[in-house]
């Protein structure tokens, strides 16, 4: 049934650290790799080597520029996947019962055997977390790697979502938000983990850690740390056009020939 559970025993989800993410897209790639070769219909690509390649992805990385009046612009890499909302609008709109939120851990999933591919859940999601696979005609979304996190055939360190396992920067954390002492709960409390588009009232489980404030070196007391290192080594006008070192020796040697 597409009614949402009143409460869930666990609230499994991700913390994404926007201060640390370097925008390498490794999470995008490993997500696609794991989820195309395991659970359900593969994540198809269309015209993969053509002029307009398109494909199904469960995780995407946007890159934004944030600029405050009079300050330097700041680049923020922004991975986005399903937030496993507590009040998930994608679940209740589903007419077939294919979409559901699990009572035991709060993961939002799609039963592909029932999905008729109407796309209404993708319309209901504010975050663009659901994509209709163009070949299979079924809705695909992040499963929080439900086939990894409980998988006893995998070594214990691999029992986390593929995106978390692969992140080379340590910008992604997986855990239970219902437990106040979990890694994700503590990170959220310490760093002011935020919800995306809270005015939509979806109560997302995943949290984003804002970038830490940057040291301001562009204000009144301007200190340009790199400037001294970039100064020309010799300022003598006579030698300005003369290269020094190995190039200088080579130059002189070639002159002599």
């Amino acid at each position, binding site marked *: 049934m597409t009614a949402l559970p009143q409460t869930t025993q666990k609230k499994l989800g991700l913390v994404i650290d926007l201060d640390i993410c370097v925008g390498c897209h490794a999470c995008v790639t490993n997500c696609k790799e794991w989820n195309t070769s395991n659970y359900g219909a593969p994540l198809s690509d269309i015209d993969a080597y053509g002029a307009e390649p398109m494909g199904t992805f469960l995780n*995407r990385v946007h890159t934004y520029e944030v600029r405050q009046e009079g300050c330097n612009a700041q680049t923020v890499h922004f991975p986005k996947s399903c937030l496993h909302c507590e009040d998930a609008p994608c*679940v209740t709109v589903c*007419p077939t019962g294919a979409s559901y939120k699990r009572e035991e851990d709060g993961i939002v999933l799609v039963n592909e055997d029932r999905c008729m591919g109407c796309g209404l859940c993708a319309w209901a999601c504010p975050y663009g977390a659901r994509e209709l696979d163009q070949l299979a005609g079924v809705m695909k979304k992040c499963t929080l790697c439900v086939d990894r996190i409980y998988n006893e055939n995998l070594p214990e360190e691999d029992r986390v979502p593929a995106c978390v396992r692969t992140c080379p920067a340590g910008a992604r954390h997986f855990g239970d938000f219902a437990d106040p002492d979990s890694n994700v709960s503590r990170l959220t409390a310490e760093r002011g983990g935020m919800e995306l588009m809270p005015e939509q009232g979806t109560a997302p489980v995943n949290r984003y850690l804002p970038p830490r404030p940057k040291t301001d070196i562009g204000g009144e007391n301007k200190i340009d740390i790199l400037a001294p290192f970039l100064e020309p080594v010799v300022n003598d006008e006579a030698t300005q056009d003369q290269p020094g070192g190995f190039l200088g020796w080579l130059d002189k040697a070639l002159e002599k020939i």
Partner: protein
Amino acid sequence: MHPAPSVIIFTSLSGLGFGLMAWLGIGIPPVGGFAAFAFFLIAYLLAVGGLLASTAHLGNPGKAIHAFSQWRTSWLSREGISSIATLLVMGVYAFNLIFLGQRIQILGWLGAALALFTVFTTSMIYAQLKTVPRWNTGLTSVLFLSYAISGGALLAGLVNIAVVLLLLLTLVQIIAWQTGDKRFRTAGHSLETATGLGNLGKVRLLEPPHSSPNYLLKEMVFTVGRKHALKLRTISALTLGLLPVLLLVAMPFNLVMVALAIVLHVIGVFTARWLFFAEAEHVVGLYYDKR
């Protein structure tokens, strides 16, 4: 939102069909025999044709049978059940009326109520979506019901009633356009709330996550043709109500004039429904810095 032909045909035709059914159900006009057969045939062709067109929007139409199961939460599921119930109840009513010469009025009333409820459920598929502020208002339901009731009256040949209702419909549609234009802004969504980065400054997209379009952009960030919106609104407002009313009032009354008024009205309905989708902005467009 992408104005897919399947959903435009579905909402337009089934709305007209169920609107006509509602009038036939309450017995206005009080037809029987062959005339009733002709009216019901048109109503069923429109309603069923529209519903069949909607299945073209599905990735897996073979699994559509499951869509009748989630009526507790899903407006789309309620729509499916309500439309089938309407077709069944009206079928029994029409059979008795046409072939047995009996009017079972209670069935007619029930069928008419179900027909209008079906149109309401269709409207709620769109009106429930907080992600599309233009649709997320009670006015969407008023609009869809106005289309069904006035278009149904025109199809039923109720000239006097249709003239009044078509003018009212035009008014409701113009109000919906005007108020709809402000809804995204007043809903308060922005790239700053979408990313949570608003307290750090003004946010703009530096690099999109993919260089080609994807399902999200094709389905929900449709921006083609909006520059013609004003022209299309004018065409729609004229053909929807004003021109048909002029034909019905100022020209000598005959079947050709009624048919012409219906053709004009249907052109207006399709144009307005195209705009309904093409002008609707989904909040996911914010992440791509375009709507």
